[in-house]
C-alpha cells in the first residue's frame, strides 16, 4: 500500500512558560510512514511538544518541518494533521457517522465522496453497524476506534496520538495497540505518539524518544533503547535494570568491538565488557554497568566462566514463567535476577549461588557531570593495531 505519510523534522525547539523551560532545544525526526513515540513521565515536556507540533502553542525558538516545509506560521486548522485525543473528544451530539464525516465536510467534499470514504474507514476500524449510534452508546474501545477513524479519514500526512491507550483497561489496551499499529501500517501515516507507558512504546514504535525535563535523553529504535541505554535515566526508565558501579582499568579496540576491563564490587576479577564499535566510548574511569536481570544466568555446572560472581538469595517472587530473585553480592549490593522455576527449585536451598553474564550483554554508562564536557575516546585513544 502506498504511503500517505510525510516526513517530520523538529529542529532545536525550545519553549518557555514564564521562566520555566518546558522544552530545551529539542530535535527529532521521523521518516515517512514511521511510528515514533515520545516517552516520558508527566512534566517531561512531551505534551508541550505535541501541542507545538499540532499548532496549539507556539515555540519560542526552533523550527518544525512537515515534508520539508516550515509550518511554524501555520495555524492549527491549516496544518492538516490528524490527532487522537486521550479522552477521544468525540462530539457527543453527533453520531459515529457524523463525527467521522465532520473533517470531510470541513474540506467541502461532495456528499457521495463523504459517504464512500466514511464507509471505507468504518470498515477499516471495524465499526460496521454502529454508524447511527451516539458516542455515549459505544464502549471505550469502540469510542477509540471512532476517534481514530475521524482522525485519519482525511488522509492526514501526520497523525498525533496523545496517550492513545491511557483510558482503556488492560485487555482492550493490548487489542487496540495492535489495531492502531495495523491501521497505521496499512495507511502508511507518519505517527507521533506521546505516552508514559513503556510497554506501549516498545511494542508500537519504530523509534522511541525518551524525554525528561524538557530534554530528549535518547532517540533510537526500541531494541537500542532497551539494550543499549545511553544514560542512567534511560536505563532506569525502561524496564528493570541493574546498575553496577565500576572503574575502567583498561580499554582497547579489538577487531569487532570495544573491550573494557572494569573493576567492580561483584568479584575480585575484572569484568569484561564488549560493546559494538559504533557505540560512543568516553575517556572516563567512573562508569555504571547496566545489566538486565534476564541476562544474568545461574551457573549450573560449576565451571569457570568470565564475568561470574557469587551471591546469596535475599528475596524471591514467583511470576509464573520465572522467579524474580533479589540477590546480595560480595560487597552487599543487591541485584535483580530472573531464574527459571526449575532452576530455582533445584538451587534455591543453597547458601550461595554462582552467576555469570556474557561480556556483550553489558552496557557502559558514563554519567555526565555538571559542567564537564565528555570527550569521546576516539579523540585521544589510539586504536589497537
Amino acid at each position, binding site marked *: 500500500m502506498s504511503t500517505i505519510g510525510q516526513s517530520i523534522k523538529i529542529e532545536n525547539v525550545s519553549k518557555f512558560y514564564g521562566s520555566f523551560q518546558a522544552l530545551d532545544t529539542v530535535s527529532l525526526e521521523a521518516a515517512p510512514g514511521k511510528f515514533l513515540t515520545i516517552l516520558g513521565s508527566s512534566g517531561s515536556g512531551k505534551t508541550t511538544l505535541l501541542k507545538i507540533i499540532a499548532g496549539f502553542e507556539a515555540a519560542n525558538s526552533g523550527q518544525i518541518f512537515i515534508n520539508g516545509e516550515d509550518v511554524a506560521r501555520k495555524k*492549527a*486548522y491549516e496544518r492538516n494533521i490528524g*490527532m487522537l485525543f486521550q*479522552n477521544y473528544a468525540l462530539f457527543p*451530539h453527533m453520531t459515529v457517522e457524523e463525527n467521522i464525516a465532520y473533517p470531510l465536510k470541513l*474540506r467541502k467534499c461532495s456528499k457521495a465522496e463523504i459517504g464512500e470514504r466514511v464507509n471505507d474507514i468504518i470498515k477499516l476500524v471495524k465499526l460496521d453497524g454502529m454508524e447511527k449510534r451516539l458516542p455515549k452508546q459505544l464502549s471505550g474501545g469502540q469510542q477509540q476506534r471512532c476517534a481514530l477513524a475521524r482522525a485519519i479519514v*482525511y488522509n492526514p500526512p501526520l497523525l*498525533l496520538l496523545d496517550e492513545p491507550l491511557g483510558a482503556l483497561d488492560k485487555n482492550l489496551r493490548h487489542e487496540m495497540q495492535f489495531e492502531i499499529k495495523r491501521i497505521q501500517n496499512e495507511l502508511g501515516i507518519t505517527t507521533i505518539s506521546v505516552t508514559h507507558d513503556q510497554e506501549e512504546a516498545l511494542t508500537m514504535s519504530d523509534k522511541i524518544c525518551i524525554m525528561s525535563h524538557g530534554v530528549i535523553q535518547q532517540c533510537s529504535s526500541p531494541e537500542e533503547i532497551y539494550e543499549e541505554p545511553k544514560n542512567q535515566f534511560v536505563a532506569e526508565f525502561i524496564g528493570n535494570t541493574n546498575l553496577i558501579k565500576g572503574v575502567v582499568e583498561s580499554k582497547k579496540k579489538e577487531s569487532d568491538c570495544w573491550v573494557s576491563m572494569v573493576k567492580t564490587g561483584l568479584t575480585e576479577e575484572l569484568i569484561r565488557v564488549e560493546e559494538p564499535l559504533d557505540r560512543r566510548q568516553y575517556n572516563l574511569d567512573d562508569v555504571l554497568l547496566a545489566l538486565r536481570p534476564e541476562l544474568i544466568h545461574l551457573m549450573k555446572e560449576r565451571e569457570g566462566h568470565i564475568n561470574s560472581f557469587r551471591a546469596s538469595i535475599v528475596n524471591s517472587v514467583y511470576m509464573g514463567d520465572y522467579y524474580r530473585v533479589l540477590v546480595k553480592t560480595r560487597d552487599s549490593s543487591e541485584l535483580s535476577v530472573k531464574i527459571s522455576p526449575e532452576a530455582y527449585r533445584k538451587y534455591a536451598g543453597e547458601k550461595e549461588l554462582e552467576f555469570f553474564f556474557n561480556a556483550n550483554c553489558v552496557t557502559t554508562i558514563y554519567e555526565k557531570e555538571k559542567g564537564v564536557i565528555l570527550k569521546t575516546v576516539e579523540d585521544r585513544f589510539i586504536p589497537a593495531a
Partner: protein
Amino acid sequence: MSKENIKSFSGDINAHGVPASHRIAKATGLKWVIMLLPLLFVVVSLIISLLGILKRSFVGTDGFTLDYYVKILTEPLYTTVLLNTLKTAVIVTIACLLLAYPAAYLSVRAKKPIVRRLITGGILIPYWMSMLVRIFAWQIIMQTNGVLNQLLMFFHITDEPIQFLYTTGAVCVSMTHILLPYMFLSLQSNMEGIDENLSTAALVMGARPARGFVDVFLPLSVPGIFADSLMVFVLSLGFYIAPALLDGANNQMMSNLIEQNMNSFNTNLAAAMSFELLVIVFVILGIAFKFVGNIFVPKR
C-alpha cells in the same frame, strides 16, 4: 482536603460523596428526619397557604363561582396586563441571554485566570448590592433631566428629553440588570461542562475557531441555554419591585395588579390572578420537561 481532615470524618464517605461521621451516618431514621423537616416546612407554609388561595379564587359570597377567572380572562384590563407581563419576560430573557452568553463563554475559555475573574466579578458585584438601590439608580439615570437625557442632549442626539421612566423599556433594562447574574452564573457552570478538547479537536480537523464554535460549542450549549432562559423567564414573570417603581400605570405587570387588588380588598380576584400566573409557569415547565428532559439536573 488534607489527609488529617479526611481522617477526622472517620473515613466514611457515603453514596453522595459527603463525608459524615460513623455515628451520625448509622443513626437509623435520621435521614428521614433530615428529609421530613424541610418537607414539613414546605407543606405547612407553602402548600397549605396555596390551597387557601386556591379556595378563595373559586369561592364568592354565594359559594362556588368561576366569575373571577372569567373576569381576568375576558376583561381587557386583565388580559392586557397578562400580555404585557409575558412580553416583558420574553424581552428580559432574550436580553439576559444575549448579554450573558458571550460573557460566560469568554470567562470559561479565557486562557488567563485574571480575565475570568474580571468578567465574573464585573457581573457579580452589582448582584451583591441591594435590589432597591439598583432600581433607584436607574430611576435617577433615566429621569427627564437625568444623566442619560443630559448626555443625549449634549451630543445632540436628541433636542428634547426623552421619556424613559415609566415605560416598558425602563422596566426591561432594570430587570435585565437584576437577572443577568443568574443567567450568567448558570450559563457559566453549564459551559464548564463542555469539554474544551472538543473545540481543540475541531480545530485540528481543520475548522476555523468560528466554525468550530457554531458546529460544536453552540449545539452543546443549547440545553443550558434552554434551562437558564426558562429560569430567568419564570423569575421575571413574577417580578414586582422593578415594575412597581419604574412602570407607569398604563403598562403594569401581573404582580403589581395582584398587589393593587389585595390592597383594595379584592382578595378573590387577586387569588385568581395568582393562580393564573402559577398555572402558566407550570405549563411552561411541563412543556420544557416534555421536550428537553429534566433540564434542572445537568447531565454529566
